[in-house]
C-alpha cells in the first residue's frame, strides 16, 4: 500500500514502525461496501479515537452534503443556477478528508469540493453565489481556511504548495491541502507543484479524488498505472485509499497530516471513487459512461456502507436516521431559500474589490460606466 519505496521518509515509518511495506496497488479499506469493518494494522490506529458520536457526525455529514448537492442540481434544472458540478458518489472522499483538518489548515480546491467547503464551515448560500452569477466569488478564504474554488484544472496545486512553503518558513505546523481530480494529474501545474513540494519539503497534501472521469475521458487513457504510482517519481510518498470509505479516507488523511506537521513533507493520496453524476449539469454521461460500471459503483455507495456499519454497531436507530434526514431536509430548505434570495448586484459593484487601493484608471471607467447607465431613461 505504500508507494514511497524510493525515498527515506516513508509513510510506513509513520503508520507503524515495524510493519512491512505494502505491494503498492491495493486500496486502503477499513469498511467494505457491505459496511463490515476490516482491521488494518497500519491504519486502524489513525482512527482509533473516533467516538460513536463522531461516527454519527460523519454519517450526518455524508447525508447532508448529498442533500445539498441534489438540491443544487435541482436548482440548476429549475433555472436558478447557471451551472453546478455535482459530487454525487464522492461524499466520503471529501467528508473523510475535510473532517481530518484543523481549523488552521488551508484548503485549495477545485470546483467540485462542495462537501469540503461545507465541512470547513462555508455558509450554504456562499456555495452558490458564483454559480448563480450574483458574485465573482463565494467567501472570504481566511474565515474558513479554504480558498474559493479554482476552475482552472490543477492551478490550485501550485497555490497550495506555495502556501505550504510559507507555513514552513513561518515555522507553524499548519498544512495545506490541494484537492483535485484524476484529470488534473495530467496538467503541467500539478506536476510542477509536485516538483516544488518535493524540493521544498513542503507540508502539503495532494488529495486526488480519482472519480474515473476527466469529463468524458476515462482515467485509463491518462495512466496505465494507478495515479498514486506517479507520486514516488517526484519523491513524494503516496497512498491509495478507497475513496468511498469515509474511515479509510480519514485514516489516510490523518496519517499524511501528521507527517506534514512533523516535517515529513508532502504526501499524495489517491482516493479511488466514482463520479455517479455528470461532470456538470451541462454534461450527459450516458453518452460515454457504461451503465454497468455505474451499477457496480452504486453497490459501493459511501453512505450505504456507513449506514450498514453504524446499524451493525447499533448506533444508527430508525429514529436517528429520521433525525439526520430531517436535518438534511432543513439544510436543503435553508440552502434553497438562501439561493433564491440572492439578488443581482448593482452594476457598478463590478468595479469593487479589483484593487485594494484606489486606482485612477478604474475610477475613470467606473464614472464613465455610471454616466452610461445614467443615460438610460429612468436611470439604470
Amino acid at each position, binding site marked *: 500500500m505504500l508507494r514511497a519505496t524510493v525515498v527515506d521518509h516513508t509513510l510506513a515509518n509513520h503508520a507503524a514502525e515495524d510493519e512491512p511495506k505494502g505491494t503498492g496497488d491495493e486500496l486502503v479499506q477499513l469498511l467494505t461496501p457491505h459496511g463490515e469493518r476490516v482491521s488494518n494494522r497500519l491504519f486502524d490506529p489513525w482512527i482509533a479515537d473516533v467516538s460513536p458520536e463522531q461516527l454519527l457526525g460523519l454519517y450526518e455529514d455524508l447525508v447532508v452534503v448529498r442533500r445539498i448537492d441534489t438540491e443544487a442540481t435541482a436548482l440548476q434544472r*429549475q*433555472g*436558478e443556477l447557471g451551472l453546478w458540478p455535482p459530487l454525487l458518489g464522492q461524499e466520503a472522499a471529501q467528508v473523510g478528508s475535510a473532517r481530518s483538518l484543523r481549523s488552521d489548515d488551508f484548503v485549495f480546491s477545485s470546483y467540485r469540493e462542495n462537501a469540503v467547503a461545507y465541512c470547513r464551515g462555508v455558509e450554504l448560500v456562499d456555495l452558490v453565489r458564483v454559480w448563480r*452569477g450574483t458574485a465573482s466569488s463565494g467567501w472570504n478564504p481566511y474565515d474558513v481556511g479554504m480558498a474559493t474554488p479554482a476552475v482552472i484544472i490543477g492551478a490550485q496545486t501550485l497555490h497550495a504548495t506555495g502556501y505550504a512553503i510559507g507555513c514552513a518558513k513561518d515555522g507553524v505546523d499548519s498544512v495545506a491541502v490541494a484537492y483535485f481530480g484524476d484529470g488534473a494529474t495530467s496538467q503541467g501545474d500539478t506536476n510542477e507543484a509536485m516538483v516544488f513540494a518535493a524540493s521544498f519539503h513542503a507540508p502539503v497534501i495532494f488529495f486526488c479524488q480519482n472519480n474515473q472521469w476527466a469529463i468524458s475521458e476515462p482515467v485509463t487513457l491518462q495512466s496505465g498505472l494507478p495515479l498514486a504510482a506517479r507520486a514516488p517519481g517526484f519523491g513524494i510518498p503516496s497512498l491509495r485509499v478507497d475513496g468511498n470509505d469515509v474511515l479509510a479516507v480519514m485514516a489516510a488523511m490523518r496519517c499524511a497530516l501528521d507527517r506534514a506537521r512533523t516535517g515529513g513533507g508532502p504526501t499524495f493520496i489517491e482516493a479511488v471513487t466514482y463520479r455517479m453524476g455528470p461532470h456538470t449539469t*451541462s454534461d450527459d454521461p450516458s453518452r460515454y459512461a457504461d451503465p454497468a460500471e455505474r451499477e457496480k459503483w452504486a453497490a459501493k455507495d459511501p453512505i450505504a456502507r456507513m449506514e450498514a456499519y453504524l446499524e451493525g454497531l447499533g448506533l444508527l436507530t430508525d429514529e436517528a436516521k429520521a433525525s439526520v434526514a430531517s436535518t438534511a431536509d432543513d439544510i436543503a430548505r435553508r440552502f434553497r431559500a438562501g439561493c*433564491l434570495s440572492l*439578488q443581482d448586484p448593482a452594476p457598478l459593484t463590478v468595479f469593487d474589490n479589483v484593487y485594494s487601493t484606489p486606482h485612477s484608471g478604474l475610477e475613470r471607467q467606473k464614472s464613465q460606466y455610471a454616466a452610461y447607465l445614467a*443615460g*438610460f431613461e429612468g436611470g439604470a
Partner: protein
Amino acid sequence: MTTKEFRLPDLGEGLTESELVAWHVAVGDLVSLNQTIAEVESAKAVVQLPSPFAGVVTRLVGEPGATMAVGTVIATFEVEEDAAPPAARNPVLVGYGAPVERTDRPQRRVRSSAGISPAEPVSPVEPVLSAEPVSSVERPRSTPPVRRLAHDLGVELDTLSGSGEDGVITREDVQAAASAVPLPQGGGETRIPISGVRKRTAEAMVSSAFTAPHVTEFLTIDVTPTTELVATLKADREFRDHRLTMLTVVAKAVCIAIARTPSLNSRWDEPNRQIVQFGHVNLGIAVATPRGLLVPNIPGAEALSLAELADAVTQLADTARAGTTTPAQLSGGTFTISNVGVFGVDAGTPIINPGEAAILATGAIRRMPWEYRGGIALREVMTLSLSFDHRLVDGEQGSRFLTDVGGILAEPGLVLAMV
C-alpha cells in the same frame, strides 16, 4: 393560492431550446418540490426537470417531441402563498433561462443621449443607407469584433440599425451594409426582379463560364491601314449606300480567318460526345439595346461580300435596337464579335456565347505613339481580345486565328495571300 409559472431554463450554458421528451405528471396532479415533472433533451443532454414548486399542476404546455424555446412557460402551478420563494427575481443570469420573447424581462429603456434632455426622444435610426445621415448622437450598440469588422470594411456604424438582440449590430448587419456600399448614396436600393433578357443573359453566361474552360488572348495592332481603307472605300461609288465601318472589316477578317482555322467555328456537343464543325459562319454581333444585351447573328456570313456584310450588320443592329429581333435571329450563332470599343475600353475577357467556340472583342481605336517604319508615329491602334473554349481550341489555333484577324486589320492587302 397563487399561480406560479415554470419557464424552461437554459439547462446547459447557452442553449436556446430543448425538446420535450415526456411529461411525468398530469394536469391536476399534486406535486412536491423537486419532484420530476418532465424529461427534456437539449443539444447537450437528456435531463429530468424537477418541479420548482410544491402545488397542483394547472397547465402543461407542449406535447412530447415539441421543441420549446428557453424562457417559455412550460407549466403552471397553484401553490400556497407561503410556498413562494422569499424574493421574486428577474431572470438575467447566464444560464438562468432568459426568455426568448423577453416579455417578462425588464424592458430596456431607451437611452437618452448626452447633451439632450432626457425627455427629448432620440430619433430612431433608419434602415441601411437611409437617404439622409441619421441625426442620432449615439450610434447603435455593437461589440468590439463587429466594430473592427466595420472598420475593416469601411462601414459607418452610425448608418446601421442593429438586427441583433436589443438592437445590437451584428456581423451580418455590417456585411450586408458592406456589400451595399457601392450603391449611390442617397438613392437607397431598388430591387429588380431577375427576368427577361437579364435572366437569359445571366443563365447563358453562368452556363458558359462554368462549363467551357475559357482562354483569353490579346493582340494589339496598328489598324491605320484599315481605317484608311474604310475611308477610301466609303468614297467609292460602289459603297455609297452602304454603312461601311471598322466592324464590317473585322467581320470580314473573322470569316476569312475562320476558313483558315475552322476549329474556331465549332461546338462542343456534350450529350453526344461529339465536336460539331460548322460548315458556315453564323456571325453573331453583340448589340447593347434598351432591353439588354442581344446577340443576333448573320447567317452564312462567310458568303457575303463586304457590302452585303455592311448592310447585314447595319440591319441587324437597327433591328435589335428597335426591339424587333426575332428568336430565330438570336439562335444558331457560331461565332460572336463584341465591339466593346464603342464603350471606350481597350480590351476584356469576353465570355463565349453558349454553343460556340470563341468570341472576339474589339477595343477602342486610339491614336497612339507606335513603331512605324523604323520610327515612332501616331497611329490608330486597337486591341483584339479573343476568348476560346479550350475544349475545342488549343493555343496554337487560337493564336493563329487571332494573328490572322490582326494581320488583316494591320495590312488588309494580306487578304490577297489568304483567300
